[in-house]
């Protein structure tokens, strides 16, 4: 009985979303206050019913209701409760429901904070979000219903895909979805601005914190996915340029460009059409990601549900949403743009370059990801685009961007004096150059052009993001939280660049055969297999190696790489043994038995790999700090709209470091 209630709740939510997506938009067009006021209660009620449906599905998993097809295929009575909850979003149907729930959460957040917005803006924003809810609810109810019954009920479930039975996977998809879906808010604000024909600096101030918040989640979500791939897939890589990874990375790049562009729109009232286009692009790329993953149009190791019927539905949804948004853009954006001058060395120029380079990077990744599709559609055969190509096309726009960050942070709005900036930071530049060229030789005994460039860029960004605020403080300027957040986030970019450069230049991977009493060496470390132990986990049997790692005769660590065999799905999983330090990881993964008690093992030495994830955490912290800035809290508390003159004054005092 209960699962049917879940389905009914979803149908009621659909009706409420349809209400939320129509009347307030009509009301805003006609200036009808009563119709516009419906948006908020409809949005909150819609959230309530979606939450009920979601909790009913969670309950079905926790109580192992195998009469539901979705539960029977993705859970098992032996599965620990923690993973039963995570199994809710372990496959397609449940993850769609999670998507809908998160959209409803963002919508409610906008509704609850809508008091600070003019009624027509909040009605339009909530109306657009309501239409997005209608599309996803229809999709779920018609093609991906998680509440379908199984006749007869299964006696036990097939079990959750063992790859997904991991703590990081409990939070990775929700985190990523919160980021993906959060970009819908900026999208809705962009559509609202185009519908109303009003786009001022206040608009940018409303939109900016929502974008930053979505970006923070997206950053952490992608980072978690990369961390999971690193230790769970057993290959020791941290990024594979897989279509599904790219699908999450492209919106991230667009969102990064978006909030930089919003900074210009907020402070100077410029780049309006850019900002609108980026807001549309960021969310479109999120939808595109969903389409690519769900339709099976591209074959990927991550793509778990592929079904052409779903593909057609999502494609139609995509065409309607993105098509209308871009048509509206072509119609309305020309009249919204403001032309104003700025010098070639001013901050505006650097932010424009930032936008252009990030969009180029996202476009190249999009082309690379879809290239197999283009080739196939034109009947030129089957191809795949490899990691090498992606790395190359990614570095081309990113390397200049990395150098520009350090300069751009120090420039000022409207006019700029590049020579002055460079003179001020000549010592930092000198230190970065020396560090990039000399340090690799000193530490690793070799260097090359790409490595040196990467390290120079990383050190330069880090020094510049410490140097710039220090200089301001010494000059007597109080730093706003958003300025500190920006510098912190840029410091994170530096950490990430350093980690990525060093690990890809000096990481060592070796496949060896190991057996008890026969130590093997790789990257200066000696690995000795002490023993192999068998045992039983809750829903798997395992074989655990005990490997002593020594360097120059001194013990470093004892690692426990595991092979797990999950009974229900008859599949083998690798759990790597990792000794992680900030300076390096030493990594052992068990391969296959080679006979005579010998095992193949993959040994890895990964210098500074932790900086990759640390860097992304620092970036996200920077975003959070910027979010807590006083002017967003003040802006949301104050019901009165800031007048043009006042906001100009404010923007200028906040100028050093608002971007």
């Amino acid at each position, binding site marked *: 009985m209960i699962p049917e209630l879940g389905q009914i709740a979803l149908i009621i939510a659909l009706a409420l979303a349809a209400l939320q997506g129509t009347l307030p938009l009509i009301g805003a067009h006609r200036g009808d206050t009563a119709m516009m006021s419906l948006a908020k209660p409809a949005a909150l009620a819609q959230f309530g019913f979606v939450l009920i449906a979601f909790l009913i599905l969670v309950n079905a998993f926790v109580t192992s209701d195998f009469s539901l097809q979705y539960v029977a295929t993705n859970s098992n009575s032996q599965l620990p409760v923690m993973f039963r909850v995570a199994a809710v979003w372990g496959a397609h149907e449940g993850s769609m429901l999670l998507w809908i729930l998160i959209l409803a959460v963002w919508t409610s957040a906008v509704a609850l904070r809508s008091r600070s917005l003019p009624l027509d803006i909040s009605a339009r924003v909530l109306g657009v979000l309501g239409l997005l809810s209608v599309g996803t609810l229809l999709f779920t109810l018609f093609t991906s219903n998680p509440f379908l019954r199984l006749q007869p009920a299964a006696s036990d479930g097939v079990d959750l895909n063992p790859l997904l039975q991991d703590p990081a996977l409990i939070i990775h998809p929700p985190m990523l979805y919160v980021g993906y879906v959060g970009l819908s808010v900026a999208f809705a604000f962009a559509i609202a601005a185009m519908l109303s024909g009003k786009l001022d600096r206040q608009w940018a101030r409303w939109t900016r914190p929502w974008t930053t918040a979505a970006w923070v989640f997206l950053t952490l979500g992608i980072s978690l996915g990369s961390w999971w791939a690193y230790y769970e897939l057993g290959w020791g890589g941290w990024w594979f340029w897989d279509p599904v990874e790219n699908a999450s990375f492209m919106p991230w790049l667009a969102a990064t460009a978006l909030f930089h562009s919003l900074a210009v729109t907020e402070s100077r009232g410029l780049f309006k059409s850019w900002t609108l286009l980026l807001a549309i692009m960021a969310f479109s790329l999120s939808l595109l990601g969903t389409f690519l993953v769900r339709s099976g149009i591209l074959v990927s190791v991550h793509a778990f549900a592929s079904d052409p019927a779903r593909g057609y539905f999502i*494609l139609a949804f995509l065409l309607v949403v993105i098509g209308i948004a*871009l048509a509206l*853009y072509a119609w309305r954006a020309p009249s919204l743009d403001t032309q104003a001058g700025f010098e070639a060395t001013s901050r505006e120029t650097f932010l424009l370059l930032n936008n252009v380079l990030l969009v180029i990077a996202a476009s190249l990744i999009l082309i690379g990801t879809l290239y197999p599709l283009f080739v196939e559609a034109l009947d030129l055969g089957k191809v795949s685009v490899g990691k090498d190509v992606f790395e190359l096309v990614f570095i081309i726009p990113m390397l200049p961007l990395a150098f520009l960050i350090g300069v751009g942070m120090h420039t000022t709005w409207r006019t700029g004096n590049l020579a002055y900036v460079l003179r001020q930071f000549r010592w930092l530049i000198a230190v970065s150059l020396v560090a990039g060229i000399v340090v690799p030789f000193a530490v690793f005994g070799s260097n090359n052009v790409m490595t040196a460039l990467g390290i120079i860029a990383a050190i330069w960004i880090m020094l510049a993001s410490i140097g710039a605020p220090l200089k301001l403080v010494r000059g007597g300027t109080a730093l706003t939280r958003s300025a500190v957040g920006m510098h912190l986030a840029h410091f994170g970019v530096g950490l990430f660049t350093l980690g990525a450069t060093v690990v890809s230049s000096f990481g060592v991977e070796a496949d060896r055969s190991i057996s008890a009493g026969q130590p093997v060496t790789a990257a200066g470390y000696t690995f000795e297999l002490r023993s192999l132990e068998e045992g039983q986990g809750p829903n798997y049997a395992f074989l655990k190696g005990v490997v002593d790692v020594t360097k120059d005769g001194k013990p470093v660590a004892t690692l426990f790489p595991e092979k797990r065999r999950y009974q229900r799905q*008859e599949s083998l999983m690798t759990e790597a043994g990792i000794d992680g330090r900030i300076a390096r990881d030493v990594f052992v993964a068990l391969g296959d038995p080679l006979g005579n008690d010998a095992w193949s093992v993959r040994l890895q030495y990964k210098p500074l790999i932790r900086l990759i994830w640390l860097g992304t955490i620092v970036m996200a912290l920077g975003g959070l700090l910027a979010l807590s800035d006083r002017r967003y809290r003040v802006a949301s508390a104050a019901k009165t709209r800031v007048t043009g003159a006042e906001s100009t004054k404010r923007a200028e005092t906040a100028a050093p470091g608002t971007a």
Partner: protein
Amino acid sequence: MVRFLVPLGIFVALAAFFVIGLQKDPTLIPSPLLDQQLPAFSMQSLDDEPVPVDHTALAGRPTLLNVWGSWCYNCRVEHDFLMQLSRNDVIDIYGLNWNDAREDARGWLRQFGNPYVASGHDIDGRVAIDFGVYGAPETFLVDGNGTIVHKHIGPLSPDVWLADFVPRLAALDRAVSQ
């Protein structure tokens, strides 16, 4: 203002590719073996029968050659349907046990049932290479003359069977009776 139309134009072009892409099956990889004679092979029987499993065993009537392994999740998915085919004597199924440990493979058949007339153990993966195997499961439909009529990638199901196998089997039957 033409430049504001550029994003829409790019998107429309992309969408056209998606529409075409959706109509193509990404798992449909053309096999160069299609309509060709079965490659000659000989594998040791998984059940230690003295007779090897080879291409001559498949001669004389339409048969299926199914590539499987105990490690392969989708093989488990299609297994019940293979059992159904075998119980109802629809067609003789031969197994190509690929990339597997002998004990694991036998245990798997003991646990889930054995739909195969015989399974060959492809110890070094040579036979799979000759057949251009891309992943497991894969199923080849072979006619009485030893010609490969159809290749299916991925798990078999009643739907796939009705759509891709039944019409071809019917055509083979007609050809024989004429």
